[in-house]
């Protein structure tokens, strides 16, 4: 939260429309999410001129309150209300967090408003402590009737920012944000006073500093004596309230105030409790400290601690220790202004669940120039508002990276990146607005990046970005890249995945997309390839713990999901990558079919999905991919599949996948599945398409049927027929399979239709008969078959 009244201290905003300014700031890249007026209407300063007990109550009082224009009666129950106080009065119509104030009667007595405590205005937390304090007593010269918002600092405009990470280290504190506003408005920033008088006593006589960790690059401290702890001056309280912090006392408030100015967290030690030594080191394993919230914290060696040479007095950058806490009796203070390693602070704060205002800021990163400025600013304010005497000298450990970041470029480099046409003078103007120091020599700019801009690196792109955002991206003119015309291609196996996907859709299968991470229960099924699986070491939940090696379990889930929604016909597929424990990738396609593939209910005709429909889908897909006559379905027992209805699919005699009915003990429904490794398909070469003329000469068709043992596979008979039939046999089809009383118990009859033809001539009867007889003989002898009919 940024108080615009505060920003006005550093940059002149006279006459600026603050809503419009928010839009300009947002356009330039720092997102102002909300512009809020903190003003509460009908809130005035009142003077209690009379206060007598309520006649019908033992704790209420009747107050006569001067509200400038009038003197009104208000019933008040606060323990501290009395005549002679200046107070905040919410008049009828004021809307407070607790509701709207209305005139009315309390136990029979007229009450025309409410005398308020800060917590009732939403400006303080409601605690036992603030409640016991009662109404807020004002110390002000402002006359009764004055708008109390002026006193409270609620006459302010507040920007709520949603800043991208990279600007989150300079735009969340007021001076940093002032620089951003200044560059947008082309104005200059004035930094606050940080001068003070010192007494002749060197801090180094009182404290010895040792830094014994690489995680603290900069540690500066000053000492002040004889502070007077009291309430903060009005402007500090107002500002803190506006920025969302609660005023406590002058010393604590000054520490917070400086943090909100410079983004640099300070830590105040009670010097007398601390002793004469500071040793910054990594914590020891299991070392303990009681932090100032009263909790015991157990540390690890990744944490950074400030110690008094022996025991920890502060978890660096996160929270101070109770043992050196500044309290009402504190006289002498050691002010720490330091830089700790951002990553370590983030990790410590997150492990201890202690995300304090300080730790958040350390976690973003700091620059040592502001670390020093903040230290001096704190001294200035402590002298002015806490009567502090400031010792001369400074305790300092300085291992900060002081390298100056510079970038050299030509105007054309910027133009080339942004596609715009700035002149050298334009660039000078923009750099001036940014308040970046630069030198220009024969068209070459050398820019020194200010330390407050931690986000900018030494490269041209960063400068182009700064200039571009001020130039305004909305001013860019759209162009297209000057590149050669071509059409893009699907690279590698992307193409075959697209081809398979589009073929399966045209065969009536619906595409699904499922999660890669599955439960152990799912992962334990369909492990037919016997692959080890990747088990996540830290899964988010048990149902997303393992990277799947088969897509079938996911398809079965989709089937169940649709079945529960009364979708009877489920024809689905998925194409996805799988990984095994050796991180080997295999792209797979899986298909699931259940129900009617084709149907017309009122005609009572349907084609029900079964093994052979699914086999047809796969065959069609493989034919389409150019593998005609190169694949086979070989019966095999596969876990989770029906032992009599399962097969491996082979291509060029190598297994590429499985097909079958899901085992009835696993899924009762007639569900058919198949899965193919696409990686294996992708590796195969195919022949180019070549025109093949249909025969101009008549074909000769002949039928025949054999009786064979039941376990003889049709394919083996077909292969025998094909070999025996020779060149003239051009097609074989199966047109009947019979099992029953006309054949033996362990037998079946299969009928084949054979087609003979020759592309160059008409066949004569004799040669067909020779071929036909040879087929019969071969099948009879090789397959143990008997000819049933021809």
């Amino acid at each position, binding site marked *: 939260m940024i108080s615009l009244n505060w920003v006005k201290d550093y940059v002149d905003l006279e006459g600026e429309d603050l809503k419009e300014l928010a839009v300009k700031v947002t356009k330039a890249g720092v997102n102002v999410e909300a512009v809020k007026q903190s003003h509460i209407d009908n809130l005035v300063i009142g003077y209690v001129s009379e206060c007598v007990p309520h006649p019908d109550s033992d704790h209420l009082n009747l107050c006569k309150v001067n509200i400038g224009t009038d003197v009104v009666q208000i019933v008040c129950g606060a323990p501290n209300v009395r005549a002679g106080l200046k107070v905040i009065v919410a008049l009828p119509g004021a809307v407070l967090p607790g509701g709207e104030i209305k005139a009315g009667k309390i136990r029979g007595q007229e009450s025309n408003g409410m005398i308020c405590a800060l917590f009732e205005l939403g400006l303080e937390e409601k605690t036992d402590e603030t409640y016991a304090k009662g109404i807020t007593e004002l110390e002000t010269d402002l006359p009764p009737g004055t708008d109390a918002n002026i006193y409270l600092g609620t006459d302010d405009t507040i920007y709520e920012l949603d800043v*991208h990470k990279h600007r989150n280290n300079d735009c969340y504190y007021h001076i940093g944000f002032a620089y951003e506003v200044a560059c947008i408005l082309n104005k200059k920033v004035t930094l606050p006073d940080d001068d003070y008088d010192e007494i002749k006593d060197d801090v180094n006589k009182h404290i010895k500093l040792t830094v014994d960790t690489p995680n603290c690059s900069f540690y500066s401290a000053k000492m002040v004596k004889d502070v007077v702890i009291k309430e903060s001056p009005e402007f500090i309280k107002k500002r803190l309230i506006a920025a969302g912090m609660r005023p406590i006392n002058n010393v604590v408030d000054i520490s917070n105030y400086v943090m909100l100015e410079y983004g640099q967290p300070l830590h105040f030690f009670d010097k007398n409790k601390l002793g004469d030594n500071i040793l910054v080191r990594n914590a020891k394993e299991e070392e303990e400290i009681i932090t100032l919230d009263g909790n015991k914290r157990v540390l690890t060696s990744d944490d950074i601690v400030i110690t008094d040479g022996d025991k920890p007095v502060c978890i660096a950058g996160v929270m101070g220790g109770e043992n050196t806490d500044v309290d009402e009796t504190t006289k002498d203070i050691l002010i720490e202004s330091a830089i700790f390693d951002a990553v370590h602070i983030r990790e410590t704060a997150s492990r201890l669940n202690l995300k304090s205002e300080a730790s958040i800021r350390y976690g973003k990163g700091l620059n040592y120039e502001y670390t020093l400025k903040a230290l001096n600013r704190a001294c200035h304010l402590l002298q002015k508002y806490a009567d502090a005497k400031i010792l001369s000298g400074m305790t300092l450990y300085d291992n900060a990276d002081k390298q100056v970041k510079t970038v050299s470029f030509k105007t054309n480099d910027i133009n080339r990146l942004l596609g715009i046409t700035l002149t050298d003078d334009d660039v000078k103007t923009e750099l001036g607005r940014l308040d970046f120091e630069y030198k220009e020599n024969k068209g070459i700019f050398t820019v020194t990046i200010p330390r407050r801009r931690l986000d900018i690196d030494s490269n041209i792109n960063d400068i182009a970005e700064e200039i571009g955002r001020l130039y305004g991206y909305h001013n860019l003119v759209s162009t297209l890249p000057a590149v050669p015309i071509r*059409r*893009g291609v699907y690279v590698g196996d992307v193409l075959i995945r697209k081809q398979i996907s589009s073929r399966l859709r045209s065969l009536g299968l619906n595409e699904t997309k499922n999660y890669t991470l599955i439960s152990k229960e799912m992962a334990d099924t369909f492990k037919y390839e016997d692959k080890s699986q990747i088990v996540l070491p830290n899964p988010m939940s048990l149902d997303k713990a393992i990277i799947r090696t088969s897509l079938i379990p996911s398809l079965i889930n989709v089937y169940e999901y649709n079945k529960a929604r009364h979708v009877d016909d489920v024809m689905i597929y998925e194409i996805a990558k799988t990984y095994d424990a050796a991180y080997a990738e295999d792209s797979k396609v899986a298909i699931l079919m259940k129900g009617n593939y084709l149907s017309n209910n009122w005609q009572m005709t349907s084609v029900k999905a079964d093994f052979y429909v699914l086999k047809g889908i796969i065959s069609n897909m493989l034919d389409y991919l150019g593998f005609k006559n190169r694949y086979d379905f070989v019966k095999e027992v596969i876990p989770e599949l029906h032992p009599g209805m399962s097969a491996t699919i082979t291509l060029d005699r190598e297994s590429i996948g499985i097909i079958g009915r899901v085992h009835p003990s696993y899924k009762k429904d007639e569900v058919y599945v198949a899965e193919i490794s696409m990686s294996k398909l992708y590796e195969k070469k195919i022949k180019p398409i070549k025109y093949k003329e249909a025969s101009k000469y008549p074909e000769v068709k002949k039928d025949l049927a054999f009786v064979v043992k039941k376990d003889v596979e049709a394919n083996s008979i077909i292969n025998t027929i094909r070999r025996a039939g020779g060149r003239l046999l051009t097609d074989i089809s199966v047109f009947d399979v019979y099992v029953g009383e006309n054949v033996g118990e362990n037998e079946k009859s299969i009928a084949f239709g054979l087609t003979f033809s020759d592309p160059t001539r008409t066949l004569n009867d004799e040669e067909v008969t020779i071929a036909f007889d040879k087929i019969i003989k071969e099948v009879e002898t090789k397959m143990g078959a008997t000819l049933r009919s021809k």
Partner: protein
Amino acid sequence: MQDLDNILEKLKEEIKKVNDEIELNNLRVTYLGKKGSISALSSQIGSLKPEERKDFGAKLNQVKEEATALIDEKKKEIDERVLNEKLKSEDIDVTLPATSISVGAPNILEKVVEDVEDVFMSMGYDVVDGPEVEEDHYNFELLNIPKGHPARDAQDTFYIEDDTILLRSQTSPVQARTMLAAGGDKPIRMICPGKTYRRDADDATHSHQFMQIEGLLVDKNISLSDLKGTFDVIAKHLFGEDCETRFRPSYYQFTEPSVETDISCFACKGSGCALCKNTGWITVSGAGMVHPNVLRNCGYDPEVWTGFAFGFGAERLAMLKYGIDDIRTFYQTDLRETHTFDRRDDNND
């Protein structure tokens, strides 16, 4: 001669009573058959005087022709009537439901991805692919996100092996892989749609698995204005010709300058509505000029080469385009819903 005329008159009378093909055949036999009445008359020709024969013969032929014509005409009439009766009996109710012929529907995300691929391919971008189980090196290090960088906290990655192997949290590692493979001296135009994973609990707007469509163009003299022009083309293709675009400054580790890219709200045409949160604009992607460190890390000299990169969320595009408000829709195929997407979609509105 008189007989001939009488025969014809008689035939005309009798044919009127004929109802079907059988009766007509009988009639044909009666008159025109070998033993029919007309044939019988022709035998009279022998008994005529030679000078009468010619006339009689002519007359006989004329009667034969007329009789044949009468019968043929009747035949045609009967055939037509029979056919009409048959057709009438075959009448169907064309309003009864069809046999369902359905082609499968694409997954909604894939439909969007294919749409985006199509427009980019037409502009010369190749569609490439990369591993989902990825090395930290490609997912973070090469992309200017070193260990300890705050961007890593936020990304909240599924690590498989500490600090080395992970489920990719973005498709950007494919950029790095593509540049490294190209060897630092060839221009690149590519997009890489794919699955990505982050440790987000699944709800209506979060998904631990989601799809990004990443793009990269590297060449000489490529500018942010070129990115703007390219984005214009995509936005118009996806959301219609009257779609306007704007860039806002933003920040990503692997691009500099970085922008967020907005389209004018297609629901309210920019006047402000719930969809665009009354801003008139909808953010659809993040983009920027490839960071010189990334170019350098991947073998390209940033003094010579420049480029832009962009990333769309496929879910976000699909949700906007089709009015879907729950991200889980894409990952739990409800066949009652997905068939809606088995159709063309021309964006001509």
